[in-house]
């Protein structure tokens, strides 16, 4: 179907919890001999299904440890789900952790090209976008400074500028509206609002009910890895507010 941007069907994710991680061959053999190789199964997500329509802003809600981040990482392709599948219809840009994959030894300039390539953009394309990214991140002064010397706010700004330099089809946002000072936050919000009005599908994670209510039309509420409530944003927020 053309109308569906993200389709999550029956996704379950299992992690092995062990008290102490086995780090080497010797330990493995010793543990195997002692028959201590048992893991505790932990299901971070249990049979989660929903679809997000094109151009929709979809909220993902839940308390800490409900599985929100795991779900977003599965949609972004970082994890492969134990069961179930995710089908994406279009180009995806994750704004999960800003500045992921930066090489601290290299300058802002080098990192723009490396990071752009991670999203699959050619060098020539990044060169064309370069000044736009630097303008937005307001980092011209530090163009040739190694990223290791950046403040966390600067790293966040650079990461946000690179990730949003391209108009994606699907955008995953994990509480990023906390980047930098209030001026930059306003800039970020403006950019995201521009994208939404440009027809981007957005998956938004936030603890802030107000933000979700303002921006989303539909939402899903997760509790301990299970879908508690799915549908209209007001309904989901009501259930979330009840605890």
């Amino acid at each position, binding site marked *: 179907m053309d109308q569906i941007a993200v389709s999550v069907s029956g996704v379950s994710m299992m*992690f*092995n919890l062990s008290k102490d991680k086995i*780090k*080497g*061959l*010797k330990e*493995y053999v010793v543990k195997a001999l002692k028959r201590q190789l048992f893991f505790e199964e932990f299901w971070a997500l249990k049979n989660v299904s929903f679809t997000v329509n094109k151009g929709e802003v979809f909220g993902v809600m839940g308390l800490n440890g409900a599985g929100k981040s795991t779900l977003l990482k599965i949609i*972004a*392709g*970082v*994890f*492969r789900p134990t069961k179930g599948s995710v089908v994406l219809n279009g180009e995806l840009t*994750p704004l*999960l*952790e800003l500045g*992921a*994959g930066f*090489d601290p*030894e*290299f300058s802002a300039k*080098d990192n723009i*090209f*490396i990071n*752009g*390539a*991670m*999203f*699959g*953009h*050619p*060098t020539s394309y990044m060169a064309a976008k370069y000044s736009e990214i630097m303008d937005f991140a307001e980092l011209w002064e530090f163009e040739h400074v190694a990223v290791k010397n950046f403040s966390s706010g600067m790293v966040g700004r650079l990461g946000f500028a690179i990730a949003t330099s391209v108009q994606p089809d699907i955008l995953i946002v994990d509480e990023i509206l906390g980047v930098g000072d209030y001026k930059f936050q306003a800039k970020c919000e403006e950019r995201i609002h521009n994208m939404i009005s440009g027809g981007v599908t957005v998956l938004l994670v936030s603890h802030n009910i107000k933000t979700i209510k303002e921006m989303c039309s539909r939402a899903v509420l997760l509790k301990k890895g299970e879908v508690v409530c799915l549908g209209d944003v007001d309904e989901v927020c009501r259930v979330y507010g009840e605890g």
Partner: protein
Amino acid sequence: MLTKKRLALLTIFMTMACFVLLLFLPDSIAGERRAEGKIIFFSKIGFLSVCIAVTIAMILILLFKREFVRWQTFSFGRYKYLLFNLVKRDFVSRYRKSILGVLWSLLNPLLTMLVMTMVFSLLFKDTIKNFPVYMLSGQIIYLFFSESTTRAMGSVIAGEGIIKKVYVPKYIFPVSNVLSSLTNLGFSLLAFLFVFLVTRAPFYWTMLLIPIPIIYTFIFSLGIAMLLSAMAVFFRDLTYLYGVFCMLLMYLSAIFYPISTIPEKYMPFMGLNPIYQYIDYFRNLVLVGEIPGLWKNAVCIGFALIALCCGVYVFMTKQDKYILHL
């Protein structure tokens, strides 16, 4: 009906059949030198058994069709820029902050060669003519292999920061490491040419074929690199074990001693050492001026393909589990 699967199977069996036919080709027609008779005999046996292993592996792969299909998500076109950027980054960061910079890529093999020549030319003075070129040709191939595989082995572990946060194809990490070692090999070759000219070694036109053994070694190293980088995620101890193994390999590959020092009865086993095969191929081109025969080519290609098949298979089937073990 000629499906993709059947086509793949057919190609594999045809290749195997060709190799088996090649086995019955008399050595004289295949263009081998008599002196190597025993090496050839044993490498034939070794090679045949490995061929069978590959056939079985291929059939296994085809049986696990689910995994096979997933391989199509290589998406190489999209990530070639990342590959290029990573290789470039590697190269730049290698000599960052050293005064001579890139020049070290050239100086390093030259200086190593100088030390080795001083030490070993005293030991094997009469047995090897033009020792510097003899040693350096072995050194180049061996160093490329050991450097690329050792570095690639830790590449997936080192890529933790990226793997945990964004999606990139995992094979990018070992492949970029092997490629950056290949650029290093290019510089070593320049150093090699320099030594070649200084020592006034006789020039053979076969020297122009040097890329062939290098391609073989590259494919072989790539396979081993993928295998090791996958295994190292689950068993970190491998990193230390492999260092010892590499040292053993160096002493077994006839890099700085003449092949004639090896006792006659152990000679056949030299044929089973892929690195020795590649070094020998290289030396045939450079020092003897002879193009190795069909059989030697088949053995070299065979080793390379087997390593690649195993490496890619293990890497791809395990790649979803890396993130849980980093």
